[in-house]
């Protein structure tokens, strides 16, 4: 029976697209306030550290970061193809490997907190 690896790529892509839609705009808004020089109280070290220390916090942060990375990698791959960069296997390998490395790095940073 022929097996497709598509579901493996697609599930995190769809989940990531949803996570990006729900979470990334408000997160960008928070760091935008920091960029303007008005750092929200919740972005201070104490509260961010406390949040990332808790198990639930770690899970939420890792979920958002890893799924967003994977979804972005998949979308960038399609974008490269649509702009005429047709070396799809190379592009896909580079982007997916980058997303996996980014996710592992995020997990390691979280475990150190």
């Amino acid at each position: 029976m022929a097996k497709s690896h598509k579901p493996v790529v697609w599930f995190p892509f769809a989940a990531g697209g949803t996570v990006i839609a729900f979470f990334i705009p408000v997160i960008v808004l928070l760091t935008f306030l920091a960029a303007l020089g008005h750092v929200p109280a919740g972005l201070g070290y104490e509260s961010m550290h406390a949040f990332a220390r808790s198990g639930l916090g770690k899970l939420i942060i890792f979920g958002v970061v890893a799924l967003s990375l994977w979804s972005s990698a998949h979308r960038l791959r399609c974008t490269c193809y649509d702009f005429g960069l047709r070396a799809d296997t190379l592009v896909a390998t580079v982007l997916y490997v980058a997303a996996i490395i980014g996710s592992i790095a995020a997990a390691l940073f979280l475990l150190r907190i």
Partner: protein
Amino acid sequence: MSRKPLVRECPPTTWYFRQPRYLRYMSREITSIFIAAYCVLLVVGLQRLSQGPAAWEGFLLALRGPDSIVFHLLALTAAFYHATTWFNATQKAMPIQIGEGFVPGNIISGAHYAAWAVLSVAILFLAGVF
């Protein structure tokens, strides 16, 4: 017997200028560049957070400045564009059938918008913005 082979003319790098709907598609594609860049920023932020208070304060300080403001405005536009188009597509991607009929698409997309608004306000509140 030989027939002329079909040659589909499709310029690989400029095809999307042919139709406004292709341009709209590509404008959505481009948002992935800014969102991906922002994801990298998130991973760097996590690294700084794991390195202690001084590193985190340095990260917050490095976020300030005109370049960062421009980047954030681009990322914010990209994120909102992605979110709205994503929620608009939900009614096509997952139609809900009840009995013979389908739930109206506006209700499915509207529910997503409502959940998005509640979630965003809750996160802003928890982050101490207001």
